[in-house]
């Protein structure tokens, strides 16, 4: 006998065995009981939550010759059997993804007229209905507006918002829910028991988590695991199949970043380049790890699990050890680096800079450092909370002192200006914060923006905004100066990188070769 995939073998054959959609089954059963059957239903919900299965059960229930208890399909009679085998003339399953044109729907409209052959109703099940073309939708609408009394449509979709409102409003809509982890696990347990398979504790939960609330996915994954592991499901093997065995070395890298171990992390970067691994992919994987760590930290790890076994414990430990802020800012930093690495022809430099930025201030910082903000955020500047941004501004203004011919800007002044502007007008602050004061003397203050922030620069050229900043400065230093807005003179990135390297290593710049 040919092998039947688990999800087909275990497809629910009656309402009672549909998992986790009680609100749907109960309503449908009552509709059959009271004879108030709608002409069209639409089942919405994530994949693998039972939409098509429910539609088939419904079709059988409507045509069954000897329904159990008045509603449940018997799965024995000729009608039930032919529907189960997909041979029924009365129940037609259409995959809208591959039959999406107007011709198919016209064809359907032609045939809709004929009375059912064996059963009481003709049931059209249209799967993935959102894939239909506009013309096909319009044709379908015509049929839905005046359906022959013996016809019932059951539409199924994962993306109801792509279905025209005119269609939706003609259908009785049911929203299928993601199936809870517990429900999936218990269903998997049932399967495993039935098949006489040994499963290590926790294995089924691993599979269930990966399925994201879809039972079909869970069963398919179980199938894959069985094909690989035979009749004994071991944690390690399952993790390997699910691709969550996890890269130990990536985990190590993430730990080094979190701990601020710059030398270690840089050595790691060196090895991946030496081994010719795809830097961007490594970065992406690290981001994925961190994002899962974030979920773990806020207690939402149930959604998905990054790793199994020892790695699982490791994640729990890391989540306990590091602050959410640390995890988030590292995540943001790496996400930005991942974009930059795509746009640069020096991926290694970008990667290393990101690493250095990530590690700064975590180790070897003298004096009390209540929060790390100014460190990790100096670079992560954009996309952060205000408090930390100010700190970033302060630092950079302090450091710019040494740059070229520019005149010194008193330390902390920039921070004060930002804070004061923010109090008066948040939008202006939002633009100003992207700039840096690079120069200030008796008459004028120059605020520079990176080339990529030209929008912000233009906003500050607005006289009203500029005046506001001038007033704020006057209030702080007791003297009115003219505010000038400009772009950073040099091309930005290269010189900035030099700055950053200098900040970290305290080196002296002898010469810059472009």
């Amino acid at each position: 006998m040919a092998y039947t995939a688990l999800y087909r073998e275990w497809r629910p054959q009656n309402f009672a065995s549909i998992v986790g959609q009680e609100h749907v089954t109960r309503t449908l059963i009552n509709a059959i009981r009271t004879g108030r059957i709608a002409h069209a239903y639409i089942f919405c919900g994530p994949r693998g939550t039972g939409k098509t299965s429910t539609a088939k059960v419904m079709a059988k229930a409507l045509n069954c010759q000897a329904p159990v208890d008045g509603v449940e399909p018997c799965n024995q009679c000729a009608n039930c059997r032919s529907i189960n085998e997909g041979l029924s003339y009365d129940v037609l399953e259409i995959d809208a993804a591959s039959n999406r044109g107007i011709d198919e729907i016209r064809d359907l409209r032609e045939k809709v007229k004929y009375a059912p052959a064996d059963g009481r109703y003709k049931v059209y099940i249209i799967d993935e209905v959102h894939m239909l073309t506009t013309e096909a939708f319009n044709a379908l609408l015509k049929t839905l507006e005046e359906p022959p009394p013996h016809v019932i449509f059951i539409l199924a979709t994962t993306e109801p918002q792509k279905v025209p409102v005119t269609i939706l409003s003609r259908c009785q809509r049911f929203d299928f829910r993601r199936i809870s982890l517990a429900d999936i696990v218990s269903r998997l347990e049932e399967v495993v028991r039935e098949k006489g398979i040994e499963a290590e504790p926790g294995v089924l939960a691993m599979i269930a988590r990966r399925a994201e609330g879809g039972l079909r996915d869970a069963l398919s994954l179980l199938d894959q695991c069985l094909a690989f592991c035979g009749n004994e499901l071991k944690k390690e093997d399952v993790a390997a199949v699910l691709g969550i065995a996890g890269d130990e070395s990536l985990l190590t890298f993430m730990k080094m970043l979190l701990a601020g171990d710059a030398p270690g992390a840089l050595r790691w970067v060196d090895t991946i380049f030496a081994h010719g691994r795809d830097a961007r992919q490594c970065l992406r994987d690290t981001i994925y790890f961190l994002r899962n760590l974030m979920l773990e930290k806020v207690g939402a790890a149930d959604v998905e699990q990054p790793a199994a076994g020892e790695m699982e414990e490791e994640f729990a430990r890391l989540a306990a050890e590091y602050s959410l802020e640390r995890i988030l800012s590292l995540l943001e930093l790496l996400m930005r680096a991942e974009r930059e690495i795509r746009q640069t022809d020096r991926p290694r430099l970008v990667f290393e800079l990101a690493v250095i930025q990530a590690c700064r201030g975590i180790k070897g910082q003298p004096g009390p450092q209540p929060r790390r903000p100014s460190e990790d955020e100096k670079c992560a500047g954009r996309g952060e909370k205000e408090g930390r941004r100010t700190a970033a501004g302060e630092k950079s203004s302090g450091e710019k002192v040494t740059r070229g011919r520019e005149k010194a800007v008193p330390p902390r002044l920039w921070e004060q200006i930002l804070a004061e502007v923010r109090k008066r007008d948040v939008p202006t602050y939002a633009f100003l914060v992207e700039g840096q004061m690079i120069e200030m003397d008796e008459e004028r203050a120059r605020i520079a923006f990176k080339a990529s922030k030209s929008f912000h620069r233009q906003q500050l050229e607005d006289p009203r905004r500029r005046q506001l900043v001038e007033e704020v400065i006057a209030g702080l230093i007791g003297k009115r100066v003219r505010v000038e807005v400009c772009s950073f003179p040099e091309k930005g990135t290269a010189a900035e990188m030099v700055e950053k390297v200098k900040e970290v290593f305290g080196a002296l710049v002898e010469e810059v070769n472009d």
Partner: protein
Amino acid sequence: MLFAGRDDGRPANLPPFCLFTGTEKLLIEEALAEMEETIPAELRDFNVEVLDGRQASAARVVEAARQMPVFASHRLVIVKDAPYFKGTLAAEEEKTLTAYFQNPAPDTVLIFVANEIDRRKALVKLLASRGEVREFKPLTGKELDRWVEKRAEKKGFSLTAGALRELILRVGSDLTALEAELEKLSLYVHPRTTADEDDVRAVVSRTLEGRIFDLIDAVAAGKTALALELLRDLLLTGEAPVKIHYMLARQVRILLKAVLLREKGLPENEIISALDMHPYAARKTVQQSRRFQRQQLLKAMLLLFRIDQAIKLGEGEPAWQLEKAVVRLSQL
């Protein structure tokens, strides 16, 4: 007798012609059905004529109206999607209709149905003075509640006050949608005859706005895990990340408006009406706004602005950016 009832003419309470306008289709359908009921069911085939205004010329309409009823006291001519009452109309068409309105057939009720009309037009004024213009606006407030209650009664069940509120909150004031959800609800609670709030929550579809509202509620309550779960649901049902982001920002903006109005010292009722939403939804929003400080909401705006930037710059998966946003929002 061949022309029985013929001499009765049109019943006195029916106008010679009328115009049904407005956006509430279900109410118009109901009014039309009511009109049809003035003709005995067995005679309707001969005495009710329905025309499509997009295809029928004025002459064709008048011709239909001038026909005589068969066995019945009067005839019904219904013109759907009538285009004659807004924009410019060919002089010929206008003349034909004007002539008819001045001298209508004695035993016909001519009904036009038009979504939109221009009341300044001479033709509309003439129609209104000699016949009737009925407007079917969406129901609001108490009227809507009563309509829902009556509908439920027809289906043999009733709603608790909480269920009614939750239903309207979830569905809005679209009567067609309300009708569909009531049908589903009545089947779900069967054989019980009362539906409560939990029943409504179990079966009635939530709008995107509603789901975003719940997400923000979870954020406000510091239930980060729940908020992430709700976000996951949205993503898995195919909502575009950029749209989810937009909807989050929109809700924050409405909340900010509510908070600012309260700071100005406006009483709650005025805030509710200033929000310009359905009263139930506005009340809920005002309740939600009490859980936020102005500063928090401003920060939230700024945060969402940056997330928007990051998504559009292509920094990582948009879905992860949203997750990060939800986590950050929960920390405000």
